[in-house]
């Protein structure tokens, strides 16, 4: 399966989705002009991966900042992951960033996937 690898920019996150090496990560800042357009390839990739997933998957979110338009798309990503067996989310937040911690907790209440919280 092909790798989705997007370099991060000042307004879009870095994304690596690599089935072969078992790396699934979204990190950095997310405030794109058109969040639906930006996350479309991510959702498409997850849909394909969901057809033949690994028995266990650890999907990492390590976001420094996201805007409200991105938050809806992050929920869409989580909802897509929800349907994949063996899915786990690792939600990183900066140790003094209570807002990012709380955001992760709220997402965890909106989907039925185990969340693990880690600081960086």
């Amino acid at each position, binding site marked *: 399966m092909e790798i989705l690898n997007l370099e991060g920019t000042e307004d879009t996150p870095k994304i690596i989705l690599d089935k072969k090496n078992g790396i699934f990560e979204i990190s950095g800042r997310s405030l794109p002009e058109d969040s639906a357009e930006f996350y479309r390839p991510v959702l498409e990739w997850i849909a394909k991966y969901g057809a033949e997933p690994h028995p266990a998957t650890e999907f990492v979110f390590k976001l420094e900042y996201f805007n409200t338009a991105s938050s809806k798309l992050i929920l869409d990503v989580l909802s897509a992951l929800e349907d994949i067996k063996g899915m786990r989310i690792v939600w990183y937040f900066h140790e003094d*960033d209570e*807002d990012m911690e709380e955001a992760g907790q709220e997402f965890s*209440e909106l989907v039925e996937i185990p969340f693990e919280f880690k600081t960086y």
Partner: protein
Amino acid sequence: MKFIYDLHRTMMSQKLILVYQGDFTQESTKSILSMAERNLDSSGEESSIKRKVFNVMVEALQNIVKHSDELVEGQMRSHAAIFLIGKEANRYSIMSGNPIRKENVSKLQAALERINGLEKEGLKDLYKEIIKNTTISEKGGAGLGFVDMARKSGEKLEFEFPEMSAEYCFFCLKVNVPRDSE
């Protein structure tokens, strides 16, 4: 050219550290954000306060960009908008002003009053409700950005709608981010 001095004095007396009027696009949003970030960094502001200010700025700026595809008195609406940041000893104020059609004022005012009527837990519930039940294409109607601004600031949103013309009001918004508390 006394207006230059007057403008300068107004900025000083209102404790404004940034004023922007002009074209509001994603590109100008990024420039304004990086300028403000540099300012916050050089003043050694606490990172949690910095993040909240950044957060509120993004939502305020993107609100203006999102509602820019309309002409007001021959000008693009985004060109007729203004964005300001004030810095006082105990708080930052993120302020914006942009034209709004009179028929849309009551709906926006009701949404803002609803948000101001809620405390922390109520805002959290409203945020979750909106994020679950709306799609991204519903252009700003959900007001998720305003809910987020209220949550990040921890204070009530201040707003006014002075009249511009027969068709338009000027939507003025002020969001305060306290500096001393955390």
